[in-house]
């Protein structure tokens, strides 16, 4: 790891000010991805600005939606009675117990790993990402491999998930990393059926073919006969594109069955 100047932010505005003053700074929440990245010398920031003391942690449910502060850990989400069961299950399935005690929702969303779980939940529930500058719809947020709509200096404050009539997430985890080889989040949301797929392509995305099939008939059987084109599907030592494409349907069926 290259050395850097470590700073603690006392608020989101303080973090933004420190970030803007740094020559090439980065913010850090739980560090469960950033620290491994730094160790591999894949990043060389001048400053690492910790959000841990910025007061961005906490969960509020107003009856119609739940808002989760950016530095709320996966363990806190998994253990909160204010969080809908489908979203708790997403958090409980991330990494391992120690990673869940430290990793955060804001960090996961901002990092946008192609196999991360939270992006699927955010797309599947039609979440809104609130930053220090604006509100961003999840549909507009995940723009590519480790890439998001966040501008330079823009920091996630919270993520708001609207209630859904039915929702569930099914994931085929890599046995080693617990990242999703493929994960599918399905929901009957206020604006209709939403299906979000993670692990299969460069980043989480919605599945229009699956959504139209499930809009017509909300049952696992409705997905029989759908073939996912393999053009943009990830292929690596863990699974071929054909295998992942097949898993998308299998996970979608499991999610629909789990959602009831």
């Amino acid at each position, binding site marked *: 790891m290259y050395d850097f100047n*470590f700073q603690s932010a006392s608020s989101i505005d303080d973090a933004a000010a420190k970030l803007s003053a740094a020559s090439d700074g980065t913010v850090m929440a739980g560090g*469960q991805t950033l*620290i491994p990245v730094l160790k591999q010398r894949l990043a060389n920031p001048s400053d690492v600005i910790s959000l841990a003391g910025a007061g961005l942690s906490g969960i509020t449910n107003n009856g119609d939606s739940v808002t989760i502060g950016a530095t709320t850990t996966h363990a806190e989400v998994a253990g909160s009675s204010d969080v809908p069961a489908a979203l708790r299950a997403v958090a409980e399935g991330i990494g391992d*117990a120690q990673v869940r*005690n430290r990793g955060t929702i804001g960090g996961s969303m901002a990092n946008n790993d192609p196999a991360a779980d939270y992006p699927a939940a955010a797309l599947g529930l039609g979440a809104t990402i609130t930053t220090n500058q604006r509100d961003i719809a999840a549909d507009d947020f995940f723009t590519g491999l480790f890439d998001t709509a966040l501008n330079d200096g823009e920091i996630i404050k919270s993520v708001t998930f609207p209630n859904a009539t039915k929702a569930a997430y099914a994931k085929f985890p890599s046995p080693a990393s617990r990242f999703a080889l493929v994960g599918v989040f399905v929901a009957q949301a206020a604006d209709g059926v939403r299906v979000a797929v993670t692990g299969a392509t460069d980043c989480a995305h919605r599945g229009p073919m699956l959504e139209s099939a499930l809009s017509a008939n909300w049952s696992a059987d409705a997905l029989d006969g759908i073939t996912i084109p393999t053009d943009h599907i990830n292929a690596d030592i863990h699974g071929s594109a054909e295998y992942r494409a097949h898993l998308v349907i299998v996970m979608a069926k499991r999610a629909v069955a789990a959602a009831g």
Partner: protein
Amino acid sequence: MATVSMTVNGQAVSGEVEGRTLLVQFLRENLNMTGTHVGCDTSQCGACVVHINGDSMKSCTMLALEAEGAQVTTIEGLAQGGEMHPMQQAFQDNHGLQCGFCTPGMVMSAIDLVAKNPNPDETTIREQLEGNICRCTGYHNIVKAVQQAAKTMGG
């Protein structure tokens, strides 16, 4: 260099560290507390697990400066008055270790596990210890040790 201060096993400590100094490096190299191990250094194996304000975390994936002001408990802080912690005793009673390299992290994770799941079944124990790898593959007796300790700690 920056100064970091925290409480480790009840003792106030401080030291000079770089921004990039990991918590596990601070524990092992500044404080000479080598009970916390570095196995993989990639947050996979769990040999470095310590408690930060009561929660188990991987000290190889945390900066020392992130622990500023924290209450840190390491494997060295478990025994009280020469008596092993019930989890340590259970590992001994059930031969829950072979080479012993993973044991400090296993014990620290297992204590957090039992604190949050006072009566864990075997599946819960295995799932909650997913972040701890024993390359002797001695999981069977580790699970038995955690089951015993859960009873002792609960009673």
